[in-house]
């Protein structure tokens, strides 16, 4: 792998593009409008073509104006068709953007055939070629897209910072926003305008399919990781930059491992963003797949533990000798074994010659569980009119979530009985452990 100025510019352009997209994309994700990003990025095509056909140049300003007009038109048409056609938003979006996209393609193929606005570029852009298209700024020669994308990024950043609270309330509670005089509709169309402008600026760099990835994936990734809007926006920028850097590195190294020439950075960048999302989805601390699995596992382990304790206590009650190893608990064997060794390590049970028995401390813990269980049975039978032979299963679940304070209230509500509905003794409350 060899790194040159060229590579640096590719990464800079990709990162500028990613950040500009991610900034507006956060609000699409939050408002469940992700497909609107897709729709607008496709639908701006006739706007671009019209601007091109009218001005016979690829000058930026007319193109941005054309895109902004068609972008807002897409949002308006979608809303009208949804309202008057009585179809859902997805269907009405599908009608609008495919029709506009097709119109744009026809305009390009028919009217602009001789020029370099071609259908390939529409699909995945030409990031590498874009670097070669240079311009001069303050005496420095820089690629043209750095200027355009930089400008769009600044506009988006200014929008997100200045209208931070207006965007937040319009996304969270548009009705309240409107009653407070912050017109959620105006904010919506402002956002759609910026989505359209961003789509156009990113268009020649990553094409209008991959632009959707850069709008949605950083925001969706940040959404999994954060609890505040401000941090969500910042994290989404980080994801966009990481996708750009890692994407370009992947594009110039990975194909080489398999004997292929370098691939295009735009595609690798979108793929990298997807990969980052996947990793976060697995390992995110709160909503991640792995952490939720771990959480469920810990919960079932605790329940097995407590059922073991409870059943040992019941065996003692029935005056059976120290039970056969281990008392029956409805759980996989490995979980029971794990629970037994944890309980033994904590000194709640004792293992001798393959038999397990409660220690004094274990007996206290178990009697608390049994007290919860039998108080719940009493409560359910007396106050909820559940048939006494139907109370066990419910009490079995409730006992695991009952702490001392709840048990004290339960005792008061049931007037602290000595026996449960089946006539079994309810163990007394122990003083809190110090």
């Amino acid at each position, binding site marked *: 792998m060899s790194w040159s100025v060229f590579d640096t510019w590719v990464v800079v352009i990709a990162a500028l593009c990613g950040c500009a997209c991610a900034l507006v994309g956060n609000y699409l994700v939050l408002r469940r409008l992700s497909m609107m990003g897709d729709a607008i990025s496709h639908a701006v095509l006739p706007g671009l073509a019209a601007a091109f056909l009218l001005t016979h140049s690829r000058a930026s300003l007319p193109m941005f104006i054309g895109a902004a007009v068609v972008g807002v038109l897409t949002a308006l048409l979608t809303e009208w068709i949804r309202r008057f056609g009585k179809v859902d938003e997805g269907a009405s979006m599908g009608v609008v953007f495919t029709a506009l996209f097709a119109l744009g393609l026809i305009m390009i193929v028919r009217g602009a055939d001789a020029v370099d606005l071609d259908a390939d570029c529409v699909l995945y852009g030409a990031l590498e070629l874009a670097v070669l298209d240079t311009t001069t700024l303050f005496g420095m020669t820089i690629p043209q897209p750095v200027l355009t994308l930089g400008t769009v990024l600044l506009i988006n950043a200014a929008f997100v910072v*200045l209208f931070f*609270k207006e965007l937040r309330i319009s996304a*969270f509670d548009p*009705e309240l926003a*409107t009653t407070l005089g*912050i017109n959620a509709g105006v904010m919506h169309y402002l956002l759609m305008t910026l989505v359209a402008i961003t789509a156009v600026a990113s268009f020649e760099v990553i094409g209008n399919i991959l632009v959707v990835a850069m709008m949605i994936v950083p925001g969706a990734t940040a959404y999994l990781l954060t609890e505040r809007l401000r941090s969500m926006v910042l994290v989404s920028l980080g994801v966009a930059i990481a996708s750009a850097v890692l994407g370009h590195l992947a594009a110039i190294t990975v194909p080489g491992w398999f004997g292929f020439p370098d691939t295009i950075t735009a595609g690798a960048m979108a793929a990298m963003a997807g990969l980052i999302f996947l990793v976060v989805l697995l390992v995110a601390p709160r909503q991640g797949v792995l952490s939720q699995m771990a959480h469920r596992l810990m919960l079932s382990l605790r329940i097995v533990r407590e059922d073991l304790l409870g059943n040992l206590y019941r065996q003692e009650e029935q005056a059976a000798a120290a039970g056969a190893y281990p008392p029956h608990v409805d759980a996989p064997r490995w979980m029971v074994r794990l629970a037994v060794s944890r309980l033994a390590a904590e000194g709640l049970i004792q293992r001798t010659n393959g038999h397990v028995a409660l220690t004094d401390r274990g007996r206290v813990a178990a009697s608390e569980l049994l007290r919860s269980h039998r108080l719940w049975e009493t409560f359910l039978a007396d106050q909820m009119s559940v048939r006494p032979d139907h109370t066990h299963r419910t009490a079995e679940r409730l006992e695991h979530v009952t702490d001392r304070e709840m048990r004290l209230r339960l005792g008061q509500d049931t007037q602290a009985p000595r026996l449960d509905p089946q006539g079994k003794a309810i163990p007394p409350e122990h003083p809190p452990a110090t």
Partner: protein
Amino acid sequence: MSTAPPLAFPAAHPATGDEHSPAAPLSIHDMTVAYHRKPVLWDVDLDIPAGKLVGIVGPNGAGKSTLIKAVLDLVPKASGRVLIYGKPYRRQRHLVGYVPQRESVDWDFPVSALDVVAMGCYGQIGWLKPVTRRWRDKSLEALDRVGMADFAHRQINQLSGGQQQRVFLARALVQDAQIYFMDEPFAGVDAATEKTIVQTLQDLRARDKTVLVVHHDLQTVPEYFDYVILLNMRVVAHGPTAEVFTNENLQKTYGGRLTLLDEAAEALRRGPGVS
């Protein structure tokens, strides 16, 4: 189709367009609301006196939420006029507080309870200005009043349904409004939250605020509200609870039989020429 035809049904109140009191916190003149072509509220015409807790009661689909939303310009009116303290709503926004239904927002949104309450201040803060310490303190105080100060920095999806409703209530309090509209604040809340809401409503009344509440539990109406609007696509009756909340009126509101008006509405929806 714009306004409701003057079909004959017994008017529960004699008020006409020009007998409204200019000082009333809310007066609605001949308001009709339609979705597509189907009318959902007919000829609502009423004045609400100041300093009252007003229950809006009626069966599902009676147009209770629609009444509030039409007053607040959130759904278009087919006809009619709404005055807040004698002036059009648009000029009186700052006097109006709103608590939407809890289900109307996404509780997984990345904001804290405090952030949500501060949203009630956005109208007072004004465009483009940030939420400064002063507003956060005010929001914290409101959270404290509904017993939620300890939860200020929790993300809202970590709150129970009742706690979420209290956050909404705190958000209404920071609005410093004169008249409040609350859409089913009692729906699906725990006993402690219900108590907090009732207490808050009474505090508001003691400060001469007017509160209109969409309410479902008929049993608690006489206890919570001193004024009721019985609604079933039209105002069946409205006035002081003791006078209006009678079995006969409830029968009229909840009675299963299609009224002449419903039949006319249905005919309109099917379109002319079809019978």
